[in-house]
Each structure stands twice: as structure tokens, then as C-alpha cells.
């Protein structure tokens, strides 16, 4: 039975990990290429979840909800980039942090006006709502397996896009020397908008995947945004590969800590003390991981060269 639990929690860790990767990939791309710190990335995650909830409600289909939600978040991302963020590229980080903080306040309130203060639920179709027997006698929710599959395919897709296509070549070139790419006649402005839209769509996708598990509510973006920051700091800001490894690491450690730390502590200290200490310690675990990584490698695990 414990082995079944261990397997289940490992999968949960993977599932959180791929969600974090979807968020962190956009964040790290935008920072690596445009040198922009975007706190409002969590707002796009929230927007994706709300879009999906609404479209699912209209069409009675979660799949159509996602298919409509993705371009909606993409367009929203492009609009945000063109209206507000474009002017911020030349500014220092402090200005970027503050202005994107303002964007969060705006979007949170806008969501409250449109969708109301109550959370929304995204209902799953019957074929996704059940459990699958992954091993003899071990069941696991179908939808969570879908999340892992979607996350891994997106990771693969991103790898192919960045490493094998012309757009990817421009992205990599933009990351190492923006001015040079511009001088070579590439429309950098459009490239930036495109990349931002891509990041937005990925964040939205993460929101849509998380929506049916947690409730869709205002402020859902802020909590996970900080974890995504931890991920890109550990992975090395600007590195997609780093974001992938760090996201899985953070997802696994966070999930494992929350489920097994009290058992582990009980072997060391008295049961009562362990019961009190475990939740506090497990809440801090990923941050301790971040600090440890930074102590040995201040630039993160996979710091991109020249970035």
C-alpha cells in the first residue's frame, strides 16, 4: 500500500512539475530574450483558466473550452504586450516590476467585475473524470495523466521549436544578442510580440489544466507565480532546459515534502513535535532548495551563456 502511495505522489509531483514548466517556460523566454521581468505572467495563467471556464460553460465541452481558450489567451497576451509592456523593454527592472504589478491589480479587479468574486468550477467530461488502473490495484485520475502527457508534449514541442526551426533560431539569436538580430534585418518588435504571445498561451494552458483540479479564482496566479520564479531561478534564467529540469525537481520535492516529511520526521523526533514541524518545514522546502542551489551556483543550474 505504501508503494502505491509513493507512486501516486510521484505522479502528483510530476503533474505539478509540468504545470510549473508551462508557466516557467514563458517567463524564462520573455526574460531571456527581452530582458523583461513580468510579474503579470500569473494574470495570464488566471485569464486562461477563466476563459476556459466560460467557454466550457457555453459549449458544454472542456476540450472546445481549451481550444477556444488558447487563442483567447494568446490574443490577450499580444494585446498586453503591445499596449503596456512594449514601452518597458528599455526601462530598468524596478520600473518593469512596478508596472507589471499594476497590471496584476488591474486584471484581478477586471476578473472580479466580469466573473464575480466567487470561484468557478470547470466540469470535466465523463471520460476524463474517472480513474485509470496504472498498475494492478493502483488507480490514478485520468485527468492528471492527461496533464502530464500534455506538459511533456509541450516540452518536446518547445524543444523542437527552439532547436530545430527558423523561429527557434531567431529566438536563440535574440537571447544572445538582440541588437545584432535587429541589425540583420529581422523585425525584432514582431519577434518579441510573438514570443510574448507564445508565453501567454503556455501560461493560459497551465491555467486551463489546473482549473478542473483547483477552483478557478482571482489571485490563483499570484501563488503559483512565485513558485514559477523559484523554478526559473533554480534552472537559470533564460534557459528552457533549466526550467524543465527545475520545474520537475520543484514539483517533486514540494509534493513529496507535503506527503512524506511528517513520516520522515517521526523517525527522528517525537510524533507530536513532528506533527507540528512537518507542515512548516514542507512549506519551506522548495525555498531551501533554491537557496542551496544558489549557494553553489549563483547563476542557476543551466545558466545560458552570454545571457
Amino acid at each position, binding site marked *: 500500500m505504501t508503494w502505491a502511495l509513493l507512486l501516486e505522489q510521484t505522479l502528483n509531483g510530476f503533474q505539478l512539475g509540468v504545470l510549473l514548466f508551462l508557466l516557467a517556460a514563458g517567463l524564462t523566454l520573455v526574460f531571456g530574450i527581452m530582458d523583461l521581468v513580468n510579474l503579470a505572467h500569473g494574470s495570464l495563467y488566471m485569464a486562461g483558466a477563466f476563459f476556459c471556464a466560460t467557454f466550457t460553460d457555453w459549449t458544454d465541452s472542456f476540450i472546445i473550452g481549451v481550444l477556444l481558450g488558447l487563442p483567447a489567451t494568446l490574443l490577450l497576451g499580444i494585446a498586453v504586450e503591445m499596449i503596456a509592456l512594449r*514601452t518597458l523593454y528599455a526601462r530598468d527592472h524596478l520600473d518593469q*516590476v512596478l508596472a507589471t*504589478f499594476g497590471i496584476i491589480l488591474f486584471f484581478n479587479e477586471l476578473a472580479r467585475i466580469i466573473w464575480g468574486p466567487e470561484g468557478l468550477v470547470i466540469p470535466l467530461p465523463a471520460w476524463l473524470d474517472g480513474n485509470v488502473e496504472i498498475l494492478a490495484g493502483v488507480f490514478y485520475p485520468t485527468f492528471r495523466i492527461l496533464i502530464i502527457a500534455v506538459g511533456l508534449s509541450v516540452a518536446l514541442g518547445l524543444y523542437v521549436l527552439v532547436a530545430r526551426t527558423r523561429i527557434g533560431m531567431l529566438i536563440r539569436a535574440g537571447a544572445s544578442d538582440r541588437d545584432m538580430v535587429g541589425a540583420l534585418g529581422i523585425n525584432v518588435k514582431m519577434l518579441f510580440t510573438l514570443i510574448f504571445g507564445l508565453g501567454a498561451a503556455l501560461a493560459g494552458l497551465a491555467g486551463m489544466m489546473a482549473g478542473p483540479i483547483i477552483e478557478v479564482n482571482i489571485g490563483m496566479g499570484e501563488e503559483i507565480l512565485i513558485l514559477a520564479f523559484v523554478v526559473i531561478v533554480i534552472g537559470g*534564467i533564460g534557459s528552457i532546459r533549466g526550467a524543465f529540469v527545475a520545474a520537475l525537481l520543484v514539483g517533486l520535492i514540494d509534493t513529496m515534502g507535503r506527503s512524506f516529511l511528517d513520516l520522515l520526521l517521526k523517525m527522528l523526533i517525537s510524533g507530536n513535535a513532528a506533527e507540528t514541524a512537518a507542515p*512548516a518545514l514542507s512549506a519551506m522546502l522548495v*525555498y531551501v532548495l533554491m*537557496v542551496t542551489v544558489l*549557494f553553489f551556483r549563483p547563476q542557476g543550474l543551466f545558466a545560458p551563456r552570454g545571457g
Partner: protein
Amino acid sequence: MTMNRRGVVMTLFLITVALLPIALVDQPFYIGLFSRAMILSIAAVSLNLLLGYGNMISFGHAVYIGIGAYTVGIFAYYEIYDGFIQWPVGLAISAVVALIFGAISLRTRGVYFIMITLALAQMLYFLGVSIDEYGADDGLVIDVRSEFAGLIDLEEGIAFYYVIFFFLLLTIFIVHRLTNSRFGVVVRGAKSNEVRLRALGFSVYQYKLTAFVIAGVICGLAGLLLGNFTNFVNPDMMHWTRSGELIFMVVLGGLGSLFGPVLGAFVFLLLEEILSDLTIHWQIIFGPFLIAVVLFMRGGIDSLLGKSTDD
């Protein structure tokens, strides 16, 4: 120092604040609002030491407000109300936490520094949320304010008002002296050219770390005051959006100006008060206002008072 426009505004402002309780004897609402504004001013002035003078974009400054407030709250939970115990302990914990957080985050720079200060602060926020003994999400009620052996009674609104006013003046004075001292010149020099300073033989890291600890302790003081003032402490005081608001106060008032953050904190709170009276959806105005300040009002309110004398 000759009385320029900035000096006149600053003096008039302080006189207004000093006389307010006399002018508005029966208006506890305004006394409360101004008390709060002064407490947040103290926090903002301390953050300006990092943001404005040292170019350290700390995104976790609200943590020290939480530490100060939690110190009062936890002592009160164990029915220890003596301010002579509570306050030194609160300041000491702020110093130790700032020393640890500073030592870690100052190893990095740029955007890493922003994210690490953010993440470390969030770690303490989650610590607060996860400790059931001290109320977890709901926090603690502080039923009795700090007692100072009968010397001063913080339960008395006006007396507390002047205690806060005194600490605000003290904070401004300390930061003024610090930034104009040899120490302050090194920290400010590190902002414009760190490499050159290191070449001159200064251990910039140690100077920055010292500034980080001083700012943490002053903000811890603001937390001690805030916990007493609101009679309440919860993890939300440490949430990263609170740190974001503090940064906004500093930038709104004027980065790197001595008095700007005070004006920033006052304008922030008054605006919040006015807008939230207007509509419950006041943040839909406040967010774009914040963006507009960043884009179009460089130098903040302070820049309206003429050319800065600090540089």
C-alpha cells in the same frame, strides 16, 4: 541648508502632521489614517535606503513588518506585554533575518536578486500560514498593546500617534545621517559604479549587507508599531503584494530622496481611501495609475519640488 521649496514643503508637512491631533480632536478616523500612514512611511523610508540609495531591488521588505507584528502578537499570546522585552526582541529578530536573507541574496545581482528576496519573503509567509498554533491564515489578535512600565500608554490613540510621529522623525534623521556619512557615500557609490569602488579597495558586499540589515531593523520597528496599532497580525502582512505596495510608495514619492517615501506613503493611503470610497472596484483605477506613474512620472512626487539636492 537653505530653505528651498523642498525644505518648505517638508517643514509644512511635518507641522501639519504634528498639529493634526489638536485640530481634529474628535476625529479618530483621521488620527488612525495618519497613524497608519506614518507607520508605512517608516517602512518606506527604510526600503528607500535599499532601493533608492543602494540600487538593491528588494521585493520582500514587508517580511520585516510581519516579523515586528508577529513578535508583538506571539508575546501577547503568551501574555507577555512588556514592551521593554517585546521591542528589543523584535528588532533583534529583524536584524538576524535581514542578515541571513541579505547574505544569501546579495551573492546574486539583477533580476536574481529581485526574485530571491521575493522567494525568501514568501517562505516566511508560508511559514506563518502553516503554523496552526499562531492562528495560521487567521493570525493572532493582540488584545493588549505593548506596555512601557506606565511611562506611556499606547492604548491612548493620541499618545500612540505621537510615539509613531517620534519614530518617524527618528527614522528620517537616521537615514539622513547615514546617507551623508562615509558609509552612505560608499553604498551610493556602489549604485553608480560598483567595480570602481571595489578597485578602490572597498568591500562592497559588506557595506551593502550592513545597509540591508539596517533597513530590515527599521522596517521591523514599523512592524512593531503596526501590530500594536491594528491589534492584530496575520501572514497577509508579509505577502509579496504588500512588498510591492511598499516599493510603489517609494517610487511614487521619489526614489533616493530623503522625504519622498513619506509623501509616497501618505498619497498612497489617501488615494486608496478616496478611491475605495468611490467604488469597490477601486483597483481597476489604481492599477493603471501605478503604471502611469512608472511610465510618465519619473522621479516621483519629489521631482515636482524642484531639482534634487541629494546627488
